[in-house]
């Protein structure tokens, strides 16, 4: 019970930390809205040319765009969440202090990242989504059940997203500098999450591959569940499967790192 309170406090701290930068949040809302508008027009042209591409109709494609803008910062799809701070702490050696804490390293950072995600969702994600719903035709469910299922997929997506970035951050124990890893995170995050194009619109074998990779849990699954394109239970299982596998991998890597690596610093 005590430890649950601890992680709740860490999450609240993550939330408050990002909530401090109000001007930056407003700027982010503006930027996401502009990108949403640009993407929506290109998708509408694409779906005009090929209706039912990837099983979506045009309104669903539009919904997908705005959901993408909503989750872009929330899930730190191109990086820039907890892993950035963790990498910096590993690089400077401050990680030694974290390892001394009577708390689980992975859970500690997960809690902080969940707090951050919650703020990014409320502060930065919701407004572009509402803007999209107001000015473009969207395919949103009117009953409660899909929204409830959607909320669950969002939670699972947050965990998967963290688990991927946590693995990347731990690699800095060996690489000592996060610059290259961050770039890999950015490329893979944008491409495999379906920020460029919905994964169900990817052609052929490439499409089949990207739809089973963990990044598919981030944007494609919540989108499909919200719009009733997939069975929610199947989506939950897919996301939870990747979440458990990646978190476990994170634990393995973490214990290897803390046992074998000498912490940097003087």
């Amino acid at each position, binding site marked *: 019970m005590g430890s649950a309170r601890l992680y709740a406090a860490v999450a609240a701290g993550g939330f408050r930390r990002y909530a401090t930068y109000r001007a930056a949040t407003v700027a982010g809302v503006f930027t996401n809205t502009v*990108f949403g508008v640009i993407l929506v*027009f*290109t998708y509408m*042209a694409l779906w005009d040319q090929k209706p039912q*591409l990837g099983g979506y109709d045009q309104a669903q494609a539009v919904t997908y765009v705005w959901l993408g803008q909503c989750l872009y910062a929330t899930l730190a799809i191109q990086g820039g969440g907890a892993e950035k701070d963790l990498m910096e702490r590993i690089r400077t050696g401050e990680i030694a202090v974290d390892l001394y804490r009577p708390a689980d390293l992975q859970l500690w950072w997960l809690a902080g990242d969940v707090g951050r995600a919650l703020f990014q969702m409320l502060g930065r994600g919701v407004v572009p989504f509402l803007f999209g719903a107001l000015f473009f035709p969207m395919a949103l469910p009117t009953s409660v059940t899909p929204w409830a299922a959607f909320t669950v997929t969002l939670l699972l997506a947050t965990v998967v997203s963290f688990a991927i970035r946590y693995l990347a951050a731990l690699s800095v124990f060996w690489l000592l500098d996060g610059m290259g890893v961050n770039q890999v995170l950015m490329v893979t995050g944008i*491409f495999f999450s379906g920020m460029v194009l919905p994964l169900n619109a*990817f052609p052929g074998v490439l499409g089949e591959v990207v739809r089973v990779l963990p990044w598919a849990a981030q944007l494609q699954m919540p989108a499909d569940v919200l719009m009733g394109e997939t069975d929610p239970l199947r989506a939950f299982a897919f996301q939870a499967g990747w979440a458990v596998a990646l978190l476990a991998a994170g634990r393995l890597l973490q214990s290897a790192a803390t046992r074998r690596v000498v912490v940097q610093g003087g």
Partner: protein
Amino acid sequence: MLREGLRAYRLIAGMWVRSSMAYRTSFVVTVFGNLTVTGLDFVGILLMFSQVDSLGGWSLPEVAFLYGLSVTSFGIADLVLGSMDVLGARMRDGSFDTLLVRPWPVLAQVGADRFALRRLGRITQGAVVLGWALVSVDVGWSVSKVLLVPVTVVSGAAIFSAVFVAGAAFQIYAQDAAEVQNAFTYGGTTLLQYPPTVFGKDLVRGVTFMVPLAFVNWVPAAYVLGRPYPLGLPPWTAFASPLVAVACCALAGAAWRTGLRSYRSTGS
């Protein structure tokens, strides 16, 4: 003043280049990474064209032509002034004041700040796509069309540079809101990768008359490719990009000077 500025820019940029060359492997990796990141947009376009034959009535080589012009111009501006988005951070931590007391033009110092040669990746990638588009588009090339291409790239780079400088001026007022600038810089280059026929009239009007990004590629490309001009602009506008660029730079320069005069330090 200008000569001084260029000299300062060269010295500072040179310093950053030498510093990045200290870690040669890291440099090579980041150039490659930069190339991949910027290439993703084009992969997206290719994926779209794997499903359709035209987008907004434009074929793949034609869209690639727009893409090549947009990305090459933006890449040049990004290489020259792309670090200006750290200006807000410099103001927040007070290190901007250091630049003000040095006997060099501030704009040159800010522009060269964290000069990153890895940004050559974007220019290379844009130029490769542009080169492919030039040999693949179905165009009867004339002297004026051939000459217009390099003129457009340079004018486009100047227009994007003006956007960067205006964005920097804006950051003096809204320090934490640096990201707004991304909507016009990165958002602008993304927008211009697609044909104007794809977008709503109001949006096209906005990027023609308010922030004249349309002159980076849409308008000159309409002439080169023999396409209808966006918003039914008269044909001579295809050659107006250099003028638009000069006007943009003048306005951005004025904004920058106004911003700089009203700068107040953090006081801490």
